[in-house]
Each structure stands twice: as C-alpha cells, then as structure tokens.
C-alpha cells in the first residue's frame, strides 16, 4: 500500500459516512445515532413542528432526562416549576415524535453519556451526536462522537445528517505503566495541562499507546469525555477485545450472526500502521502523578506535589491572576493541606460503577471529616442499582457519604445541587469554570480516589500517602 492509502481510525469512519462531498463546501455527513436530553432539545422539536417535519429515523434517536433532574426524592414531582416543565416537555416531544425515552422514573434513566454505552446504543465505527459537548465520551468505543448545538440537533432529527467540515487529526500516545494511585482521570488532566485548554481546537484526537490500551472501557470513557476540555471536537480509542468484551450482550448491540459480522467490521477500523496525523504528542505514564486543578479552566492543573505556577500553558499572567483571585489562591502556593467544604463524586466523567467501587474500597472502615459534605451521585439507575447490590451503599453510609439518585447534579449546578458562594469543592466532574457548580463556587477537579481522600481528611490530600 502506498502511504496515501493508509488511513487513520478517524478517516475510515468519517469517509464511510460522507453522503456527499463538494469542493469548497462542508461534507454532508451521515449520523448513525443521536442522543437528546431536556435542555438542548425543546427548541429543536419546535423547529420540526414549524417546518412540519417528522423525526426522520426515530430508531436512531434516544432520549433521557438528566441535566435538570433532582437527585433526591425522584419519585415525587419536581419542585422547581421550570425544571418540571422542561422534563415534561421532553416527555411530550418524545411521545409525539415517537422517540424512545428514558425519563425520570425509568429503571434505566441516567446521564446521557453513561446510559448510551450501558444500553449498547454506542458502538464502534458509528457517528454519534448529542446537544452536549461531552458526547466525546462515546469515542472510547472507536466512534466519531461529538457535541452539537440545538440547530444541529434539529437538523440531525430532520435528516440524520449534518454539514461538517472535516477536522484535522491528532494522535496522543501515552506509554508505560501508571504509578500507584494514578487513574485515567489523572492522564487526561495531565494531557490538558500540557497542551492547554485550546490546544486541541480544530482537531479530532485519537488516544493510543500502551497506557491507554491497558485501561478498562470505563476508564477509557473518562479520557475521551474530557477531550472537549482541550478544545478538541472529540476523542477516540481504537476498538479492541476490551471493547467487544464490554459490549457483548448489552440491550442494543447486534446479536448472533450479526454480532460476528459487526465484530469483523469493527476489527477493520483501527488505524493502519504508518498512517499520518496532522499532529502528534507522546507522553510517558511515569511522569503522571495524581492531578488537581487550581484555576478556572481545566488546563490549569498540576501534579499534587507541585506548586501553582506563574501562569498556565498557553494562558496569560492576567488570566492567571483573575483565576487565582476567584479561587482565593496564590501563585507558587502548594494545594496540599488546603481545607475544603464539599466533595462531589459524580458526572459523566466519573460516576460509573468502577468509580464507585474504587471509592468504596478506599473509604471502607474510614469516615469523612466532620465539616465536609460528601455527595455521591451515580451516573445512572443501573449504576445505582448495581452499587446497592454490591453493598456499596452501606459502605458509603458508614463513611458519612451521601448516596443520591442519578443525574448531572453539581457538575453544572442546574438543579438544586449547588456549591455555595466562596466554598471549595473537590470534584470528579470535568469543568472548574467560574460559577459552574453554583454562583461563586470554587472547584478543584480530581480523580475519584483523590476526591475520596479529601473527603476523609477534610483537606486536599495526596491519596498515595493513604494507600
């Protein structure tokens, strides 16, 4: 094969979905699956109504209520009137247009990026969109998955297609073995701190290398999830036996002969040896320690043993002083030992069963610090049910951790789960923007283990010292 014919994983999937290509014009790209939720879909359904259009392929669309749902007493009507109306509008729209919905009260409801893979709706080789930037999560299966705005939600519902300019490709390789107490969340926080919050803009990223290959599916999802935090449109990991093992038998995956046929096809997807990317980075897993952010974008992160720098990679001194002022921190300060007020373990980044198991194993026999509030919010009903089946709920209760019901919760502070003004929250979510967890809230992004350690000591802690 000459080198022009060698293709990346991304190129293979993209090319297989181009309905039409014209010069000086975006590609008309076919979309296999679309997820919808209550916040970014109502205006899209209104658009369809105005144009008198149906949902073009209802079986390729699936909905859930997640962003705006309460995480306590989900059996009661939602108290906040606007939130209730938004969820009811989703129910009404899905009903009217014939879209499958996992709304509040359904046994498989949950955060859109948790339930997609759980239900086997997410598969390798697909193009997947959702009106949510963390759609990149689904790339962990070797799919092209990206977030879109509401106008595009409407387009994809109406036509199963989008007009898209083909992004450039980036490969990020992480090799070697992870150190003690270092999780996939630390890998991605490390990468973002190295290439900055805009370093991936215009690119679609493929993660590769031995450190990535050795990760479980759930750990891979955590990495792809945060691709958007470096500006990348999406992230992906080539499908392999780990992928197929995770998928086998799930609700929406092909069965019997069709499964074999699908696996054969999926095995043809990984990047051809020698194929070119527009940009490449190589990192060594041994350089990564448990990470923590100190500022107001996810690129402002350091290893737990480091001090806050003069400025973040790709940022300015001005931006840094604004961020540190907001956070009540200073340059060159160490974070270890800093008192905290809240711990949030949840979000589509880290709310899956493996995350909860890790936390439970760590806190077994320990108790949270007295003046710290600890919320654990499972990513889905299925995660919640499984956690209870394994008795994790009892471990959490004994530790003083509050296990709530599934939803986005304090990840974006849209429902009542908000961190009060000025308070510090150690969080396993993906964004530390000003006010993200509630007006005036101050967020430290970490892995589930680092969060659990902070919950126990009441201050920012190097989890390795407790393992």
């Amino acid at each position, binding site marked *: 094969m000459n080198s022009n014919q060698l293709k990346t994983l991304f190129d293979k999937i993209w090319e297989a979905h181009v309905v039409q290509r014209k010069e000086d014009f975006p590609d008309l790209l076919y979309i296999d699956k679309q997820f919808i939720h209550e916040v970014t879909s*109502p*205006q899209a359904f209104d658009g369809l109504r105005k144009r008198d259009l149906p949902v073009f392929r209802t079986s390729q669309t699936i909905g859930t209520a997640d962003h*705006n749902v309460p995480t306590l007493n989900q059996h009661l009507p939602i108290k906040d009137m606007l939130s209730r109306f938004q969820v009811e509008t989703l129910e009404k729209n899905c009903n009217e247009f014939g879209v499958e919905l996992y709304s509040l009260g359904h046994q498989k409801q949950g955060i859109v990026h948790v339930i997609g893979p759980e239900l086997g709706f997410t598969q390798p080789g697909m193009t997947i969109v959702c009106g949510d930037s963390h759609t990149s999560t689904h790339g962990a299966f070797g799919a092209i998955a990206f977030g879109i705005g509401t106008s595009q939600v409407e387009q994809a519902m109406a*036509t199963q297609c989008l007009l898209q300019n083909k992004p450039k490709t980036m490969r990020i390789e992480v090799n070697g073995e992870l150190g003690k107490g270092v999780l996939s969340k630390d890998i991605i926080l490390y990468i973002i701190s190295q290439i900055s919050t805009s370093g991936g803009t215009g690119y679609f990223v493929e993660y590769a290398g031995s450190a990535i290959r050795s990760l479980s599916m759930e750990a891979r999802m955590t990495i792809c999830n945060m691709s958007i935090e470096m500006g990348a449109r999406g992230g992906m990991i080539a499908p392999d036996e780990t992928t197929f093992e995770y998928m086998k038998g799930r609700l929406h995956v092909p069965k019997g002969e069709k499964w074999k046929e699908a696996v054969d096809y999926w095995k043809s997807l990984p990047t051809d040896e020698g194929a070119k990317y527009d940009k490449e980075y190589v990192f060594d897993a041994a350089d990564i320690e448990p990470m923590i952010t100190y500022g107001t974008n996810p690129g402002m992160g350091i290893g737990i043993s480091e001090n806050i720098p003069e400025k973040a990679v790709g940022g300015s001194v001005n*931006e840094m002083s604004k961020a540190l002022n907001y956070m009540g921190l200073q340059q060159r300060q160490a974070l270890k030992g800093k008192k905290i007020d809240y711990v949030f373990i949840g979000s589509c980044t880290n709310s899956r069963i493996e995350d909860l198991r890790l936390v439970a194993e760590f806190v077994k026999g320990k108790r949270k610090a007295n003046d710290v509030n600890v919320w654990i919010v499972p990513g889905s009903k299925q995660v919640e049910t499984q956690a209870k089946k394994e008795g994790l709920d009892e471990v959490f209760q004994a530790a003083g951790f509050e296990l709530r019901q599934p939803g986005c919760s304090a990840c974006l502070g849209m429902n009542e789960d908000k961190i009060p003004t000025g308070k510090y929250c150690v969080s396993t979510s993906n964004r530390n923007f000003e006010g993200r967890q509630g007006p005036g809230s101050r967020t430290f992004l970490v892995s589930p283990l680092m969060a659990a350690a902070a919950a126990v000591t009441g201050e920012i802690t190097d989890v390795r010292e407790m393992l």
Partner: protein
Amino acid sequence: MSFNNYTSTCVPLPMENVDTDQIIPARFLKATSREGFGDNLFRDWRYLKGETKNEDFVLNNPIYQGEILVAGKNFGCGSSREHAAWALDDYGFKVVISSFFADIFKGNALNNGLLPIQVSDEFLAEIFEQIEANPKTEIKIDLESQIVKIVEKQKVMNFEINTFKKTCLLNGYDDIDYIISQKEAIEAFEKNRAFSYA
C-alpha cells in the same frame, strides 16, 4: 439582516478563554424557547449579589456601546449550549471579533446569524488599544469581501469564512434548508452503505 458595509462601535472584553458558562450560566437554561436569554447574558459578571449591577463590568459602562463584541482568544469554549449564541444575539450583538473561537460556539453563532470574525492576535490587540484610546472607535465589516476595518485608522484585515456559510448569512438561509433538499441522496446512501447500524 445583511452584513454588507456594516459599521458599529464596539464593546471590549479583553479576557481569554471566555467559556459559555460565563456567557449564559446553566441555571438560566431552563427555558424551552429561544427568546429572552439576553437578560442573563454574562449574568454573574454583570451583577454582584442579587440585582446589584457590577459597575466594573463593561456591559454596565455606558461609554461602551455597539453591536460588535471584541473578546480575547478562545472565545466560547466549554459547553455546547446554543443558548450562548442566542443570548449574545438577543442582547443585540451581531458580530463577535476574537483571535480564536471554540469550534462548537463558532458553528452555533453562524447558525444564528451571529458573525464570528477571527483576526490575528496583533490585529486584535490593535482593536483593543484603539478602543481604549477612543471608546467611540468604529469597526466596519464587509462580509462580501471578507474585510474587517478599524475605521479611524483605516487599518484592514481579511477574515476567513466558509463559502457556504457566507452564502447562508448573506441570503438568510440555514443549513437545514439545504440538507432537506438532499433527501434523495441521503436515502440512497442508507441503502448502499457497506455496513449499516440501522
């Protein structure tokens, strides 16, 4: 509206990495229509506790008026919420100038007739300097020729825009009109694809 030979004074926001959570915080995303988001544009920067205006924030400074927002690099990063573009548009902005835009925001803006113009870091710095020297500085935008001009200084720069998007903006149509017109091609694609997930 047509962008041809469009001139306005500007509102300067010389901050980098302005994310969509700042443009419109999540707690204001509960509405099910597209209207009214302008009231909460930059809510947590515009207001101190409650309804007290933050006099230090540029939107509350009567010296700066206009339909062009000039912002630091990597504007619109973070969440994909199109509400950010709706809020800017509803408030009255027609154009955002920056030296770098986040991908999803750029697409959302273009889908709502809000023109994102990417200029060089140097040109952006010049605009900020000029506005600081004279808050009544006017910027002229010629979409047809893809030129942005600091009027007083007669300084110009070309900007890039996808030809299709330019045609849409100039004529007021939307991606969806075009895609719907391609239904036959889409159905043919579905029938003939090598591997189907349907």
